[in-house]
């Protein structure tokens, strides 16, 4: 169960609307390495995790990612406020506008709607944690690319915060991998210790 707190995790206050930026940043909402996929990946993987430490990390990181969904949505919302039709046409935002006006819809920058195929829940601790490590790095690269594409200081400030969190999450999933390796059957192969066939829960 979750309860809403009436605050963003980190302040988003963008002085200058800019629909062209919004179109790029949208990818971190509904793109292949976006925050929505991240939250669903971790919150769904945690049910079959055999170790309480890892279940805790997935629960808490997945919850933080929901806060990042809200931050990215807030950036897009503020970047697309008070637009004129001329701004919408000349920025290339018209192809989004025609389907969603200025509503916040999870899609990639390319226009592909959010898809659960961007994430995996394998029900296997080593497969899932390795997926999570890769996912954090891919999200970090997306933020690096966004920072290469934009120079609005208000937007960059929030994006840098989000990028930094990907590094911390990567660190925690690294801890998870180590914990799983320490707890596995030492007679078994390193990195292969299937949980499905064991009645240890």
């Amino acid at each position, binding site marked *: 169960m979750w*309860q*809403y*707190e*009436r*605050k*963003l*995790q*980190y*302040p*988003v*206050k*963008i002085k200058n609307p800019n629909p062209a930026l919004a179109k790029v940043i949208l990818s971190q909402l509904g793109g292949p390495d976006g925050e929505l996929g991240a939250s669903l990946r971790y919150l769904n993987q945690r049910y079959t995790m055999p170790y309480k*430490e*890892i279940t*805790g*990390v997935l*629960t*808490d*990181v997945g919850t*933080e990612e929901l806060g990042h969904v*809200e931050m990215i*949505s*807030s950036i897009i*919302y*503020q970047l697309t*406020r008070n637009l004129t039709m001329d701004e919408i046409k000349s920025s290339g935002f018209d192809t989004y506008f025609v389907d969603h006006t200025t509503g916040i819809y999870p899609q990639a920058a390319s226009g592909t709607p959010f898809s659960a195929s961007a994430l995996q829940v394998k029900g296997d601790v080593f497969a899932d944690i390795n997926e999570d490590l890769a996912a954090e790095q891919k999200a970090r690269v997306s933020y690096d690319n966004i920072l290469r594409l934009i120079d609005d200081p208000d937007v960059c400030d929030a994006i840098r915060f989000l990028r930094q969190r990907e590094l*911390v*999450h990567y660190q*925690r999933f690294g*801890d*998870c991998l180590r*914990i799983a390796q320490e707890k596995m059957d030492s007679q078994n192969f390193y990195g292969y210790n299937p949980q499905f066939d064991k009645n240890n829960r």
Partner: protein
Amino acid sequence: MIENRTERNKLMKAIQTYSFLLTDVCMYLDAYPDNKNALEYYDKYRKMFEETVSEYEKKYGPVTPLGVNIENGWTWIEDSWPWEYNNN
């Protein structure tokens, strides 16, 4: 009124800061549940977070839906939402 808003923003910033420190240390403690320093850090900032939230709710309104003082009516939907430009 402007003074008021500045004071309010300062309190909200403090809530955001303490809340962030707690988010960070909680996931650390998930992986290192026996770390004494982290446990003490958690305890210190949880108290500061709770005190700041209760001060904010007394002065300005609810942070969660359970922070509503019904003497003022249903204040949960009053004021701007966190994603508004003029909220931060």
